């Protein structure tokens, strides 16, 4: 490890310099941390205040830590429904996307087709094309899928970055291993599910997490495609709640806190996959 070695050889230098360096290190990083912790702290204290307390002194500490705002927000808005919707969209779209993508990526990575490289380029180019927003809307509208779960899920069945990550990972598996693993007479379908899927599990985890986060956090597409409150995902529901109760910051803060906490916990658990997804291919140039 570079970092550990660097720290060790630092220790060989005269003691006073190391100490000054360490102090400067902590001072700089703690100063930046204020910008990160501050907004969160404000959110937490606000969510426990009464509206009166909040208007009198927005930055002070709450007098007691009751859950009134949380129950109020939960009752006023349709959050249970929003959470259910977000979960449905995320799970269904991610599952379909990942399975179809593996079947797209495998033949490309293994050279089953002539022109596989061209197909990969096609996926790369898509990252730079203009946003598809308007024709996509016309398409969904004319299919009669505007304001429907099916239409909304349809929008999340593609993700070029996911394909690129899968193809790169599959290329790193030796061909002999794949062939050796295939039982004589094993059908393609069985071969993919019994052998390829288990082999590429890390890449699948990365792509799954990356895609799922994207769907969960999407705000613009539900704003465009969903007008029925019962179909809203969490993001759209939060903004709708803000529209109605925007001046009641304690309730709004409680709602935000409730909806972001599960995300934060999941993030701490899955951090490795998220980061590997975001940095995949980025450093090879």
């Amino acid at each position, binding site marked *: 490890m*570079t*970092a*550990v*070695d*660097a720290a060790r050889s630092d220790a060989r230098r005269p003691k006073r310099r190391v100490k000054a360096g360490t102090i400067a290190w902590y001072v*700089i*990083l703690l100063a930046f941390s204020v*910008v990160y912790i501050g*907004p969160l702290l404000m*959110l937490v204290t606000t969510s426990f205040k009464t509206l009166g307390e909040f208007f009198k002194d*927005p*930055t002070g500490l709450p007098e007691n830590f009751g859950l009134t705002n949380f129950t109020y927000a939960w009752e006023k808005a349709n959050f249970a429904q929003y959470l259910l919707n977000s979960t449905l969209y995320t799970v269904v779209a991610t599952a379909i996307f990942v399975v*179809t993508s593996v*079947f*797209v990526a495998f*033949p490309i990575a293994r*050279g*089953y*087709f*002539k022109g596989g490289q061209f197909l990969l380029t096609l996926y790369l180019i*898509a990252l*730079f*094309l*203009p*946003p*598809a*927003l*308007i*024709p996509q*809307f*016309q*398409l969904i*509208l*004319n299919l009669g899928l505007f304001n429907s779960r099916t239409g909304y899920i349809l*929008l999340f069945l*593609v993700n070029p970055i996911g394909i690129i990550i899968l193809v790169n990972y599959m290329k790193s598996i030796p061909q002999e291993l794949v*062939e050796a693993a*295939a039982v004589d007479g*094993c*059908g*393609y*379908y069985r*071969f993919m599910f019994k052998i390829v899927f288990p082999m590429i599990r890390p890449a699948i985890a990365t792509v799954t997490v990356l895609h799922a*986060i994207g769907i969960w*956090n999407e*705000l613009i597409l539900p*704003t*465009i495609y969903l*007008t029925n409150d019962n179909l809203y995902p969490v993001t759209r529901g939060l*903004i*709708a709640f803000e*529209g109605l109760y925007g001046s009641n910051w304690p309730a709004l803060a409680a709602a935000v806190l409730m909806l*972001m906490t599960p995300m*934060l916990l999941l993030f701490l658990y899955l*951090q490795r996959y998220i980061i590997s997804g975001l*940095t995949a291919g*980025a*450093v*090879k*140039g």
Partner: protein
Amino acid sequence: MKTGPIVIVKRNYLFARGWKSAAPIFLFLPGFLAYLLIAVGPSLATAVYSFTDATGIRGIAINWIGFDNYHEFLLRGAKSRDNIAALKRTVTFSFFVTIIQFGLGLLFAVLLNQGRKGTMLFRTLFFMPVILGVAIQGLIWKLFLLPRGGPVAQALDLVGTSSELLGGPPRSALAWVIVVQIWSNVGITMVIFLAGMQTIPPSLYEAARIDGANGWQLFRNITWPLLTPAANTNFLLNIVGSLQAWQLFLVLIGYRPGTQVLGYLVFAEGFGQTSGSVTSAFRQGYAAAASVALFMLVLIVALAANFLVTHREKKYLG
């Protein structure tokens, strides 16, 4: 054996013979067709729609109107002056976001690649906003930037300036959106730099240290040149990302005159101005033209940046 441009060439014997050997193609198609239909097709069709008067209401005829949308967007009346201003604003926004996010991300990565105690904690903290998404990022900062008695307002009071923050003049509102944009995304820049640093062999540092190099020299002569691929990626990602970014504008300040950027303009023209009242009776042909204008801007800037970056790569990596 030919089946159009795509031909099964080898190894299909592994699974089956006869018609079953086409299984890889059959299973390849759903994902690929979805991709053409939902992503590439619509993306390219944006250019076609930009020459029409499409509305977004089902059943109304769409007419070909040539370059009218472009003419109106760039040259006609007061609105086109607003559009040009939005274009300039997009560039300004992108310039500050790119430069600051790049610098800050690099600083974080350098500091958090030294293996000191607390490293993981800081990394997690700086990366955390990335996974929250625009709705939560925006709402958290809207509260933090409360103009009456909020923490930032009070801190500004202490140094003797009072500000309406997000509600203030367009310039200051824009500046605060830049702050939130960077806060939200600098974590990505940081982890890409960190991943790049992990590929640098430690032996290089050891050798240089034996020769008596100091911290700055190590950075200047080893880290920075060998970080070229990560730096290039970050530079391009930041530029393209910030030129297209507008969602925080929607959450933080809404569609306010004097603060729009091009991406928001496309959305507002095509789908209505506020998040609460979307009807589909808007000018989607015109919005498509605006979105082609945005694409051209991204293309020109990205190509220029790419030229710079390849030049630098040649210099350092040969």
